């Protein structure tokens, strides 16, 4: 048996529903239809009355989840695409994120964001919103890169007492497969060394981890050993693991599929430069998407976001510095 990243997300939700009566799923087309990506396939049937179609009202969907959480439930809401969470943004950052701090009443909601670019999706079905959510205090932002993490981190998201933004990468939905559902996983908050190396650290998360791994493989044939750090969650951001890796390699390239201004790569760079300047043998570098909306055409899309090719070029650059 093999299981995809998408199936792992479905399985995690099935398990959460089975194990915890407080869990329910609310979102557009998530019921009998099984969701736009089929992440809730058959769940409405298996768990009657607990996987419910909502109107197209992102603000009211997230607001509803917050109210249900206040009342002791563990809602999972699916945004049809991460991009549309912009319409529910206010409820996330001003209501959910502030509730515990203001009142000591936690807000255990999980907001699933099908995120990231796929060919042909264009400006409004491709966005990466992790940085914008991570900017706000009171939120946990997960960016799983593997089938194992998609499964375990989603279960953890439901169990966590704080609001969790779960960024699941649409490109990985079908491309990524594991042999079976994993038994064990690292806890959220710990980054993972996806590949060991001693010449350069590439810090990445979500789909970019796989581009970085491809680069590490390619450069290995040239005798360069690249260490790839998978952040797993961007908030909390595991600075210790990043710093320890940079201490080993002396060089840093940070890669993100999101836009360059501010964001996760900038945060990693700032932390490493600020707290680990002495560890660096070369100026740290970063690579992001271009600073335009995400283009539709595959020719443009492939050039817009970092790929193994552009990362390899950037990596060679850092190694020459």
């Amino acid at each position, binding site marked *: 048996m093999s299981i995809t990243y998408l199936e792992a997300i479905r399985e995690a939700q099935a398990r959460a529903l089975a194990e915890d009566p407080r869990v*329910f799923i609310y979102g557009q087309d998530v019921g009998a239809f099984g969701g736009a990506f089929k992440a809730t396939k058959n769940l409405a049937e298996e768990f009657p009355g607990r996987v419910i179609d909502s109107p197209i009202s992102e603000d009211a969907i997230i607001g509803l989840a917050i*109210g*249900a959480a206040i009342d002791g439930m563990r809602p999972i809401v699916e945004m049809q695409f991460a991009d549309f969470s912009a319409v529910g943004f206010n*409820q996330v950052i001003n209501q959910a*994120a502030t509730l515990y701090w203001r009142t000591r009443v936690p807000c255990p909601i999980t907001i699933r964001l099908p995120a990231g670019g796929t060919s042909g999706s264009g400006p409004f079905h491709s966005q990466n919103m992790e940085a914008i959510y991570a900017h706000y205090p009171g939120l946990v932002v997960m960016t799983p890169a593997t089938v194992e993490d998609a499964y375990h981190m989603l279960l953890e998201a439901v169990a966590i007492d704080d609001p969790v933004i779960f960024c699941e990468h649409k490109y990985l939905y079908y491309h990524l497969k594991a042999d079976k559902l994993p038994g064990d996983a690292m806890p959220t908050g710990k980054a993972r060394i996806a590949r060991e190396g001693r010449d350069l650290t590439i810090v990445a998360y979500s789909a970019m981890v796989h581009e970085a791994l491809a680069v590490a493989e390619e450069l290995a044939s040239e005798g360069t050993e690249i260490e790839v750090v998978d952040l797993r969650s961007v908030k909390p951001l595991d600075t210790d693991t990043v710093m320890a890796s940079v201490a080993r390699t002396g060089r840093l390239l940070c890669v993100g599929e999101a836009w360059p201004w501010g964001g996760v790569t900038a945060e990693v760079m700032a932390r490493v430069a600020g707290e680990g300047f002495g560890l660096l043998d070369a100026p740290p570098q970063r690579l992001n998407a271009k600073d335009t909306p995400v283009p539709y055409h595959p020719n443009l899309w492939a050039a817009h976001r970092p790929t193994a090719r552009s990362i390899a070029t950037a990596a060679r650059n850092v190694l020459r510095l």
Partner: protein
Amino acid sequence: MVQTVASTKAGALVSTFRDEYTKAFRWMLLARTLDDKFAGLYRAGKIHGGVFLGRGQEALSVSVGLALRKGDVFAPLIRDQAGRLAFGEPILDAVRTYLGSTLGPMRGRDGNIHRGRPREGLLPMISHLGAMIAVVNGILFARRLRNISGVVGAASIGDGGTSTGSFHEAINLAAVEKLPLVLIVANNQYAYSTPTSRQFACRDLVDKAIGYGVDSHTVDGTDLSACLEVVGEAVKCAREGHGPQMVVARLLRLCGHGEHDVADYVDPELKQSPVGRDCLKVAEEHLLQQGWADARTVELWRSEMVQKAEDAVATVQREPVPDPYEEDWRALSSQRLLEAREERPG
């Protein structure tokens, strides 16, 4: 659609109504007194940030607080001092939040009318207008999932707040889910300085209910009898399973938007019109007319309320205020997910 037209007819159970009315009046009086106290403290420079009063809206607000019961949910907004008190919010919560006492529910982290006790069904408003309605929906939805019935959730909104996308999404969702939501729309003729002519183009806000498939009620917000009756009826309908109810009250904001605002933009003709009546005065006259209280009793009540407000302020003024060095600067409840750098400075 149920169109309940306000009537001041007290109904058959005169003595019950008289008790209800008297109780409501006393809460209104306390709310007004407390509001006046906050206004005074603001002018004396004793309050940080804004002060927002419910002057002129006490009759409507108190009717909501009284129609709800334990286990219900209430999401008040900025002009709901009366409703909060009637719903059960301790007077000290208001004073502590305005003065920033660490013993209050918000502990200096949030101020003035941004306060509540979510676990007790009193939602702490965020400033963003329209945003609380969906949260009430969520609590009602959760109760239904757990097969708990007979619960009502009330949310306040102003004429201005009805123009938000949040309002639209939440009332529509409540209608789709047939939730026992009571939406209390206080049309006080202004949103800050903006008159209703710049806010909506329908004949009356109550007409919006038709589009959502929601039952509606209109009421003269200056008339306590009418408010008690109409709001009570709306809450009863929701409780009995008739789905969301929208109550639109006509009244006038008898103060600035906040105490910083002299509100010279308010049309003097409106002030002179029936909509500009002071609901507290109207209620007092009614009490006297009906012989439910005499002038001396009302005076006694008034000094009782002044005493309550003074006592609460005197108590809170001796309470601790937040200390940035003692403050736990963390926004997550999950300690293990806090980044080391967010931890308390050493």
